[in-house]
């Protein structure tokens, strides 16, 4: 009730002062940590008069749990492709308003009609990337396009490997290295994966998100990492290279969508249309160092990103990339069990 009164008071005040900035209201974005460029937000605020707040999350599960609980007050969320169908099935998202979101044709044809959101009815690309391996080539300069970097590491890398704590990505890499399909429940494959991981984990020093600082300072010499993060590491110290395991690696895409219970759907739709502009998509890429899915954004990209090997998957390895998918519950439970054994 106090909140309500304060709100009314603020409203009265805003109207009385005729504050033009508040006329367009506020937009509450719920996005991954360190993923939204301040410059982009500033430009949007100046153009529209809408005030933007950003709240950050660190995993799809966190975002999902918080939004499902209700009362969150967010307008925009950025789920990964493997979770998106669940957001849609649960009616958590609002279909895009084509009258406002007119830039859908800017989406690169590759990302326009995707399995996880057929016809792009609910979401637009934010950024996409791959999960592979990163290696300090001053410590080891052999072949890095292999999952052996973390599954059966060469001697110099042992004890200096960090693996990101993302069960689905790590299992995707490990299962495909063992010759299985993503989300397989083939017990032979899984038993092999389990044994492999049990041997490998002794060579890992941490299972953490890893800081760029940790790589640069030499705490970590190799590991499982995201391509854009690997690019940031290379820019900080040139010894690092990103490898695409030829046995298979996951591709993911985070997608901006409007929440079904958004407080300010109009502002949210405006923002969705705003980030479909090639120039704005490039701002997001330049900030987070991942590729976006907007055609024509290339010419706005920073020099370091345009031909970066972390961003451009080499042609001969492109086929090894596969979209990450959310595994069925029983399979997920099996994978989780193997993963918990790794963490013990």
């Amino acid at each position, binding site marked *: 009730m106090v909140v309500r009164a304060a709100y009314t008071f603020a409203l009265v005040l805003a109207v009385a002062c005729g504050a033009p900035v508040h006329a367009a209201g506020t937009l509450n974005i719920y996005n991954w940590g360190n993923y939204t460029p301040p410059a982009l937000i500033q430009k949007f605020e100046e153009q529209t008069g809408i005030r933007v707040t950003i709240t950050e999350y660190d*995993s799809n*599960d*966190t975002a*999902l*749990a918080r939004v*499902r609980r209700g009362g969150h007050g967010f307008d925009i969320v950025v789920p990964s492709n493997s*979770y998106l169908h*669940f957001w849609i099935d649960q009616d958590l998202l609002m279909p895009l308003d084509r009258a406002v979101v007119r830039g859908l044709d800017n989406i690169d044809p590759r990302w326009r009609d995707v399995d996880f959101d057929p016809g792009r009815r609910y979401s637009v690309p934010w950024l996409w990337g791959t999960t592979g391996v990163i290696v300090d080539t001053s410590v080891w300069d052999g072949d890095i396009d292999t999952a052996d970097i973390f599954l059966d590491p060469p001697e110099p890398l042992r*004890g200096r490997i*960090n693996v990101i*704590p*993302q*069960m*689905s990505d790590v299992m995707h890499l490990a299962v495909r290295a063992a010759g299985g399909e993503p989300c397989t429940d083939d*017990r032979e494959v*899984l*038993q092999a994966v*389990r044994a492999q991981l049990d041997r490998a*984990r002794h060579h*890992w*020093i*941490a*299972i*953490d998100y890893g800081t760029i600082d940790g790589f640069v*300072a*030499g*705490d970590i010499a190799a590991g499982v990492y995201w391509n854009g993060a690997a690019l940031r590491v290379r820019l900080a110290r040139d010894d690092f290279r990103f490898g695409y395991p030829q046995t298979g690696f996951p591709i993911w895409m985070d997608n901006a969508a409007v929440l079904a219970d958004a407080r300010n759907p109009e502002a949210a739709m405006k923002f969705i249309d705003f980030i479909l502009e090639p120039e704005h998509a490039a701002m997001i890429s330049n900030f987070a160092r991942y590729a976006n899915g907007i055609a024509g954004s290339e010419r706005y990209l920073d020099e370091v990103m345009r031909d970066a090997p972390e961003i451009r998957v080499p042609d001969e390895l492109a086929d090894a990339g596969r979209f990450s998918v*959310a595994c069925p*519950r029983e399979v*997920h*439970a*099996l994978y*989780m*069990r193997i993963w*918990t*054994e790794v*963490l*013990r």
Partner: protein
Amino acid sequence: MTAAQRRWLLLAPAVAILACVAAGPLLVMLVYSFLEPGEFGGVRPAFSLDAWFSVLFARDMFDPEIVEPNIAHLAILWRSVSLALQTTLVCIVLGFPTAWFIATRPRGTRELWLFLVTIPFWTNLLVRTFAIQEVIRNRGLVNTLLMQAGVIDEPIQMLYTDFAVLVGMAYVFLPLMVLPLYAAMERVDRRLLEAARDLYASRWRMFREVVLPLSRPGLVAGSVLVFIPAIGAWVTPRLLGGGRNLMLGNLIELQFGQGRNWPLGAALSMTLLALVLVALLVYLRAVDPDTRRRDHG
């Protein structure tokens, strides 16, 4: 209004808060632990004992008929109990002399020493833990100093080990040991020590038969205060253990996050609660004079 009525009235707000924020959620967790996990987190309203089963057991991947111990959970459970006990032990070893030192300072200066003990509380736990990270990392303070002094050639891997978790927890929880110990020691009658010395008791004997028994209530209270938060610690093992050396708190978080198995998370939380209750029972037995007298016949 009678005195009893007034007492209840004054207690009412505290009771109401406890019912809302402690008993209520606890009850929800208890119910969750007997349900089935929902798709992508949450629960399905179907009764199941699976969560409780998998706290300690697992089914063979090939033959679900074969039941085996859940090695991962047992290992994590063991690490939690063991690290919590070690933390308590380290805190006793470091806290006992500290508390005694403070208790034997002249009146008036004790407050200053106590005040110094509480200084770490001024800074957020997260910040302090990051600071420890900086100190013990491979190119951190300790390794750099040791290498420059020529003691070691290669940095010692301390960060991301059980040792790091132990150091972090002992540091964080030490004041919780010192304060109750001090409270008990301050009440020790100094004349008893003089009497012991007059009777030619050795220093060791004085410690064992005078100081230790009289400090016992503080020792027990401090141990409980350290052990309970240590066994449920989350931040310290997460940052200093490097995500590899999970403790119970981290395992529980995993189930509510990536694991998408809320019932298992709930059952594990209840298991943690049971461990804490056991610790409290031990505490009650240790301080209750009636029990002690019975024990000694």
